[in-house]
């Protein structure tokens, strides 16, 4: 399988993804699944501008990603699927696009109604509900910001969120 990891991170393409995980996993491409960003060429160019030459950025909306993901999995290239929020990843999972792939929560930051769960993870009650729906699809959900950090499973995350 060539999809090495699926990650939820509100910063999308950034240092931890490109250097922390990208170098570790030997990535060839990062597939950003985001309905809004897939329609914005100039924002896509901003993200591409920061990538090293050996990593390609692909942008897709959810519907396109569901169509393409089996090809991404079958390809020899090593890839990383990235969404900025839980709901987008949950939509992929509910469509069966993430079977057999681990979903990593790598960064959801402070906002209104969100409480700190981990230094890199803040969740609102609605976020908690989305996480439960994501877990109910059967995919493995973990939280880990960088390789080498302790990995928490979904039950641990939800326990911490309930404080």
């Amino acid at each position, binding site marked *: 399988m060539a999809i090495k990891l699926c990650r939820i991170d*509100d*910063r999308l393409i*950034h*240092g931890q993804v*490109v*250097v922390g995980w990208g170098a570790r996993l030997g990535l060839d491409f990062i597939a950003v699944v985001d309905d809004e960003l897939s329609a914005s060429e100039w924002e896509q160019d901003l993200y591409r501008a*920061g*990538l090293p030459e050996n990593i390609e950025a692909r942008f897709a909306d959810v519907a396109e990603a569901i169509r393409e993901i089996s090809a991404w999995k079958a390809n020899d290239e090593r890839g990383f699927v990235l969404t900025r929020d839980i709901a987008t990843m949950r939509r992929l999972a509910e469509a069966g696009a993430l079977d057999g792939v681990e979903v990593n929560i790598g960064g959801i*930051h402070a906002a209104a109604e969100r409480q700190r769960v981990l230094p890199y993870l803040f969740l609102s009650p609605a976020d908690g509900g989305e996480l439960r729906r994501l877990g109910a699809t059967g995919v493995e959900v973990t939280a880990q910001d960088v390789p080498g950090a302790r990995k928490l499973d979904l039950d641990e995350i939800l326990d911490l969120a309930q404080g």
Partner: protein
Amino acid sequence: MSSSEVQGILVSHGKMADGLLDAVREITGLTEGLVALDNLGLTPDDLEERLDHLTSDKPSVVFVDLPSGSCAFVARRLRARRANVAVVCGVNLPLLLDFVFHRNLPLDDIVARLRTHVGVSIEHTTDGDKTVPDR
């Protein structure tokens, strides 16, 4: 700071920006026109809002650490709508030292200086002077 002088804004992961500012102060005694921001605990939107405020009425060079990092992305977003902002990725001390002594130049001239006059020195033991006797 003179209103015509260009300001420098250091944006980094962790505490690198503060550390670089401290090093500039240690070497030159100058930090006027330089501001350090780190991204700890900030969303990209928070960081962009702070940068937007800092650069609203001054020509600025935003120095960031990693070309693929969130700090660089935020700076590029800002530059896309601000003609008075330049973005320099891969900030290091020689770049900053050159900048603090040339802030009086127009923004375009500063960028040209940083692009062409300030190199990074990479040296290796085999490059050494063979006439120096071993100890």
